[in-house]
């Protein structure tokens, strides 16, 4: 049996101090298998984005372990974590978050050149073509629509062939039709590349498209 890509054990996270301290995650245990498409659903404030930020190494837990491809990222220094994230993880945000001064092509090129991958330019161009934006490669984010921006963000996230792709409400800022198209594209790309997907959403219909759905409520998995 293959080892899970992600192993989370007894993960805890709280914010604030003293009386205002809020325990957001209360001892989460979770395994994510390679190639699995996991949906994390829950109401606002349930802790799903906090869990995502810890899994993606964007924040550090108060206690507990997170093993990604056998590496415990919860004990890594910020520097090592940054390098690990660059090599093994891709993230798609709800607000798209493209670098405003770079074109669509350069945004996709950014993680590739950061890792000094060979043929970075060709890979980036191909990826843009595959998300249907070859003709918009020299446009800056301000010249792209919301759907186009998110497609560029997906291409950028997938560019390094990450072991795991995190998606935080990727269709939350788009209209329904565009959102559906973007999500179809996302699922197609993770399927084609065999990438593990962790999708945070509050939309049960979208969650159903994943291979597994995990409910989070008041900081605990149901």
């Amino acid at each position: 049996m293959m080892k899970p890509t992600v192993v989370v054990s007894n993960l805890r996270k709280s914010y604030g101090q003293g009386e205002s301290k809020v325990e957001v995650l209360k001892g989460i245990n979770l395994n994510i298998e390679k190639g699995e498409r996991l949906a994390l659903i829950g109401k606002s404030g349930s802790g799903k984005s906090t869990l995502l930020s810890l899994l993606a190494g964007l924040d550090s837990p108060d206690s507990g372990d997170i093993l990604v491809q056998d590496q415990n990222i919860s004990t890594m220094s910020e520097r090592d974590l940054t390098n690990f994230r660059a090599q093994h993880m891709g993230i798609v945000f709800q607000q798209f978050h493209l670098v405003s001064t770079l074109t669509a092509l350069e945004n996709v090129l950014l993680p590739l050149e950061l890792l000094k991958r060979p043929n970075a330019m060709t890979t980036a161009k191909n990826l843009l073509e595959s998300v249907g934006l070859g003709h918009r490669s020299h446009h800056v984010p301000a010249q792209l629509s919301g759907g186009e921006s998110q497609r560029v963000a997906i291409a950028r996230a997938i560019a390094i062939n990450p072991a795991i792709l995190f998606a935080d409400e990727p269709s939350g800022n788009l209209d329904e039709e565009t959102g559906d198209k973007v999500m179809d594209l996302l699922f197609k790309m993770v399927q084609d590349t065999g990438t593990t997907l962790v999708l945070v959403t509050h939309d049960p219909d979208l969650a159903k498209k994943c291979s597994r759905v995990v409910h989070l409520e008041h900081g605990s998995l149901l």
Partner: protein
Amino acid sequence: MTFKFFFIKEMKKYPLFFLILSFTLLLGTMGLVGISIVSSQVQTKLKNNAQELLTSDIAVSARRELSAEEITSLNSIFQKYPQESYKIVDIYSMVTHLRAKASRLVEIRSTENKFPFYGGIRAKDGVVFDNRGLFISKDLADLWQVKLSDDLQIGSHVMRVAGIVEEDSSMGLRGFSLAPRIYMPLEKLMTSGLVKAGSTGSFAHHFKLKDLSPQKIADIKKDIYAGIADPAVKITLPEDSSEQTGRVINTITNFMALSALIGLILSLVGVFYLYQSHLLARLKDLCLLNLHGLHKSQILLGMIAQFTFVFVVVMALELILIIPLYKTLAPTLSNNLGIELSGEVNVLAALTEIPFLYGLSLFILVPLLFGLMRTSMGLQLKASKLSMGRFRFWDFIPFILSLWLFSCYLSHSLGIGNLFFGSLLIVFFISTLMVRGGQFVLRKIIGNRGLLLPSIENGIALRSLTRSGHKLTLSFLSLAMGATLISLILQLDKMIIKEFALDPKKPSLFIFDIQEEQMEPLAKLAEDNATPLAYITPMIRARLEKVNDKKFVKKKRSFDFRSREEDEDARFRNNSLNLTYRGYMTDSEKIIKGDPFPSGGAADTRLPYISIEKRWSERMDISIGDKLTFDIQGVEFEGQVHNIKEVKWTTFYPNFFVTIEPSLIDAAPKTFLAVLPSSKKENKLSLQRNAVEKFPNISFIDVGELVGKLSGLFEKSRQAIEVISWLSLAVGLVILYGLSHDQVYRRYYDLALMKSLGFSAGRLRLNLLYEFGALFLSAMGLGLFLGWGIAQLIGKEVFKLSPSVDWERILYPALLLTILCLATILISSWRAVRAKPRELLSDS
């Protein structure tokens, strides 16, 4: 609701913004309000000085005794008002020091009781000045080594010296007259035999008018002119007694105000940035207000009212701070400016500049407010990202126009105001051109290459620089302008030092009225005294009678507000002048139009050539080729203008507005003047004593003392301007920090994203350093260069200096600004480098 929103809710919601806005406004306006207070005190003091110079409220004088009819006319006018009067007669005469058996020419001021109504005369060793005794000036006392018991022969009288005058307020800062002055009672002079029928001198009747307004006194002046037909009778009011010191101090305060305006402009750039960020932050609230029925015009009025409220609070705070500060600094300022300033502040005068400051501050916001008006507020609520309507170039026109008007108003000169404003415009256009040109070149370099140029940090920085649009232009412009102004101030400072430094080569003594036959023995005497003479120059008294055979007419004098140029014009357009003849240009002269005189003097076949000074030619409206006719002691002399020259007057060498080619003019009645280069005081005094003994008609002016006084005055003023320039620099740096902080803040999410993609803190900092470093350093470099260039232009136009490069004053500020810039970037990027990528997530 509107009131509640703009004045209570908003201010409570954004306390930091209003605090920083107020602080920026306070910093920028403080210099100008402070200078306005000092300037009003200077004006008051100068007005009092003018009264002290004249010694009365009004004086009626002529070069002869007033006739019985004229006295009757005067009495009929003045008897209507409560008044006091005295008479002053000033004549030049030879006086003999009986103990030293030496004679010399002196100016005798004879006065009556009550002299002076205004000002005072301070005698040495605690002796009280008295109109009944004989007092002599300090320079004459030094020259003759006079003691209080010594007797002087004045005409037929022998009078004992009652005191030595150390300070006479009617002399102002002139520090000299054509001859040393002595003071004696009027009745003694009238019986001395020195004043006879046909004697020339100044015969003045002075009046002190009780409780009359300046307007009423001006009306009396008109009545006197109406009653006395002879134009030779001159009526003088205090403001007519122009004084060099007053003009100099006025000029200095005007330049100080322009320096402070630099600080204001920099702070307004900061206000613009702050307000832009703030508008964007509150745009959603404003759109919601609009959605609920508040018209755009009401929003605009609300925002103007809110800004006005902030401005008024800032001004009130400023006055509360500045008035006690001025009172504390008044003694130091008095010392620095060389005139005693009152410690009391005229609050009304302090408020003079405030409407202008308000106008400028509000006008800088016009483009943003217009941008807000152009925003489609309904659409904003649907958009994923808020964006304000763009402002256009013509939105800045009210600010540009008011800045131009304010520059002219502060400098009291259309010329200097235009020069200042024009320089700002040049910087604006060159900076914009550089940014756009630079972006074009960088775009070409980047082309379709990847991000590694050669490193990814560089590549991203370069792309950011080429694609930031008007925000980058504005940042570059602000920085370049700040650096230009700082560099300009430092360069001008250098010029002022250079111009007015006590130069050991400058003359220490002017020698006048040397007759032709006295020239040779005097020169020998000077050589024997180890003080050889220099610049021996003939001087001819003449009147300009005709220009191109048409009678020269003096312009009528305006009594209304006059700019500095009009004031100078009025002084210049006098048809009496001293001229000289020589076939060459001196070191302090430079031909700017036309050709030098041909060697060998004027040919018989043509009119002798004339060289005229540039400003004199402009004010007299005379140009090359014009035929000028002078009256030289009743004989007409004609010549033709051959060239126009610039004269560097501050060399203190014998310079003339008009120089004639050697010709028949050589035979005209003339005297000579010569210069004694800087020398020891004992040598100077011994030359004067020996020369006066042999040539009693010769007059001396101690220019060394004048140069010393002026140098001191300018040195103090230079220090004041330097303080203002450093204040401007401080304002500039605060703005610079604000700019970089604002840029980093705007791109916070970009930086957080780059971190999430794998950029370490060090690489992010490097990226920011490359980008902002390139922006700041190129703007600073351009600014320092432009500042140097403009300073060279001003140096050429105003101080007649040749272009020069002072690397110290370019490299040191460049180094300082570079360090400050890099430190500013690192400090302001701190927050960005610590950016948490977690904040990019939806729940954050």
